[in-house]
């Protein structure tokens, strides 16, 4: 993984000193609430419903065992003993005290971590495929480019006061596991006809109030031109993005109003001017960055079937919670943060310490966070899988449900978040209870449920195979259901099936949706494929029955 040099370390240390001084001035009354807000947000600090929330960056989801132990330590000493992994590969603490935050940031800086730009109207954490570097279908490892973009965008003097937040994701395979098409910029590594590396560039994707799939504005950008091109996109957005209306300030609205073709034309026109004297990446520097992400010292091992002669529970876990690795003798292991009865994405301090130990014993000391709120040990010897499984069972992280209906994305919702209209965690638990039979889940196959407690869509509900959006109706929590969304390479936005349903009816409604699927599916067809083939109507009919029933729901 990337290791800080003197420049990186000086930068995070100076950042801590700067924020310590800003916090001191705020607490002394020299900075108003309004003045302090953008400063604390740029250091990941929100003021939530009950306490501040601190969002710590995990660049492209990669962290070391040592860093995980520091997070455990912070969870115990400054929080209530747990943290929450987000859809942008970050970690949130929900109960730190404002006056402790400079000390927390100082402890993070000691293990090469920070909370810079995890909030605020600036470039946020750069995210990537959680299988980067280990997946067999990779064109190139996206992480060196993520790190270059991370550095370029960190404390960028020109782009630190953008109209709104700005999210960039990078993928290195044709399969999109980073939801890159619903990012402000999606970068897809590819090779051109003569084998040179570069990027397909998408702009203007996003969720929230106005969900939009990103538009390709350039088929192939040579990789050494990456930063000069980003510079131009960001400058055009900084100058022309709307600042009069918070809900219309994202780049997707600018791209939509200009039209993707006109936006692309302006980028190209500006780029033609700056390209010669703009930021060209030195190929030797790209190689230097790539050297931080070279493969670990794999042993020469043959593939072997770890499940032979093992009990069914291990076989199920192996099937659902591990994936093929590009190196023979190894597997990628998912640690499910979706145990039934737990808030999706949450991890206790004891579990953090536990997984840090396991990472050191079984996976070269590294861990990864995925955008769907799970952890991974990416480089596990197949010979160790059985032993590792036992250890994960003991930690409560071996629920064999990765990719199934209960492996759902879920925002913290009204239990923590001051933006939320409705709770999400109780609904997640309701769904987990209702769909607790693993054999049934396996029969249903891949179904992605994504749930947000409000329009801001932190839980990516628009791109869930089944999306759930919490809405407030006269002080009661109701839930709008969409089907047919996808965040993968076949990205699509879900369609609302009808009036929202009361909280108590969410799991039953999902049951009706999967019943239709089970009746209608063809061989090997996933839920999303069936929705795409037969449309939403049969699902609507099952949920709402006649038109009169639908009216009853909407009148309630």
């Amino acid at each position, binding site marked *: 993984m990337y290791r800080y040099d*003197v420049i990186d370390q000086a*930068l995070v240390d100076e950042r801590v000193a700067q924020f310590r001084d*800003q916090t001191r001035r705020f607490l002394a009354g020299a900075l108003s609430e309004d003045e302090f807000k953008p400063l604390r947000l740029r250091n990941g600090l929100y003021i939530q419903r009950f306490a501040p929330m601190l969002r710590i960056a995990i660049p492209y989801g990669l962290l070391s065992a040592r860093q995980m132990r520091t997070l455990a330590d912070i969870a115990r000493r400054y929080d209530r003993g747990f943290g929450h992994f987000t859809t942008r590969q970050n970690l949130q603490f929900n109960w730190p005290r404002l006056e402790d935050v400079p000390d927390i940031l100082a402890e993070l800086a000691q293990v090469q971590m920070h909370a810079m730009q995890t909030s605020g109207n600036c470039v946020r954490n750069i995210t990537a495929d959680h299988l980067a570097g280990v997946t067999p279908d990779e064109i190139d490892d996206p992480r060196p480019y993520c790190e270059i973009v991370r*550095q370029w965008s960190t404390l960028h003097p*020109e782009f630190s006061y953008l109209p709104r937040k700005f999210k960039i994701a990078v993928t290195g395979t044709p399969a999109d596991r980073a939801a890159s098409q619903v990012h402000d910029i999606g970068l897809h590594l590819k090779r051109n006809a003569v084998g040179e590396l570069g990027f397909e560039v998408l702009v203007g994707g996003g969720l929230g109030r106005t969900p939009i799939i990103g538009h390709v504005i350039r088929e192939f950008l040579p990789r050494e031109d990456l*930063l000069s091109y980003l510079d131009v996109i960001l400058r055009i957005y900084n100058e022309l993005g709307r600042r009069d209306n918070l809900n219309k300030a994202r780049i997707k609205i600018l791209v939509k109003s200009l039209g993707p073709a006109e936006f692309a034309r302006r980028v190209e026109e500006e780029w033609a001017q700056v390209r010669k004297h703009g930021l060209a990446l030195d190929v030797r520097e790209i190689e230097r960055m790539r050297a931080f992400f070279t493969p670990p010292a794999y042993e020469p091992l043959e593939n072997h079937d770890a499940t032979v002669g093992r009990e069914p529970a291990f076989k199920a876990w192996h099937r659902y919670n591990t994936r093929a690795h590009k190196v023979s003798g190894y597997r990628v292991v998912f640690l499910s943060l979706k145990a039934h009865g737990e808030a999706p994405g949450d991890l206790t301090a004891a579990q953090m310490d536990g997984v840090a130990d396991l990472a050191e014993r079984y996976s070269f000391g590294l861990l990864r966070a995925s955008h769907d709120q799970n952890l991974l040990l990416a480089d596990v010897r197949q010979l160790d899988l059985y032993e590792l499984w036992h250890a994960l069972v003991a930690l409560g992280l071996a629920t064999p449900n990765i990719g199934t209906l209960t492996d759902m994305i879920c925002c913290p919702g009204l239990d923590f978040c001051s933006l939320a209209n409705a709770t999400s965690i109780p609904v997640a638990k309701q769904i987990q209870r209702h769909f607790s039979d693993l054999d049934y889940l396996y029969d249903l196959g891949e179904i992605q449920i994504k749930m947000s407690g409000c329009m801001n869509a932190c839980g990516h509900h628009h791109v869930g195979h089944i999306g759930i959006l919490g809405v407030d109706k006269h002080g009661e929590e109701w839930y709008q259901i969409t089907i047919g969304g996808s965040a993968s390479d076949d990205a699509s936005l879900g369609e609302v099936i009808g009036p929202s349903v009361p909280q108590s009816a969410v799991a039953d409604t999902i049951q009706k949706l999967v019943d239709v699927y089970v009746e209608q599916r063809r061989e090997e067809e996933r839920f999303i494929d069936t929705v795409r083939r037969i449309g939403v109507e049969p699902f609507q009919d099952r949920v709402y029955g006649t038109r009169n029933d639908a009216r009853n729901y909407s009148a309630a």
Partner: protein
Amino acid sequence: MGRETMREIIRRREVIIDDWRTIDEDPKGESGQVILPLTRWHAERDRWWSWNGRIGVRINPADRVELLRADLARLALIAIEFPTPSEGRGYSQARVLRDRLGFTGEIRAVGHVKRDQIFFMARCGIDAFELAQGVNPQSVLAAFDDFDVAYQPSTVPLKGQRGFYAT
């Protein structure tokens, strides 16, 4: 020029008494250095061009600095308005003026300008700061040294800078 217009500003990291006047403060240009709103510069361009004094213009966030290209030879100062602390367009305006248009005169941040914006503003080539009402210029000078390292090149380089870039 009454005593009330003895304004302190920061120029190149030093607190000085402002030697410029706005056109409202000095309608006849007696000080020899006046700052006009951009609209007024456009409306009275010919008259001011031949005037025997130094001219600055004050621009708003939505103004396109590229449109000043032909005027820059006559301008000694450009004041960039920051109406709110979250306003970000002025940073791009400053960089375009310096890096693209080669403007070497004074670029001055005016409006809601306070300590915590100054570091980035200076990196973008803004070299003078007319601070928001009530802010003591001496108290913000430390902001120029918030960081002595940076990841990206900018108009004004720092000591420790990442060397990703081909020259």
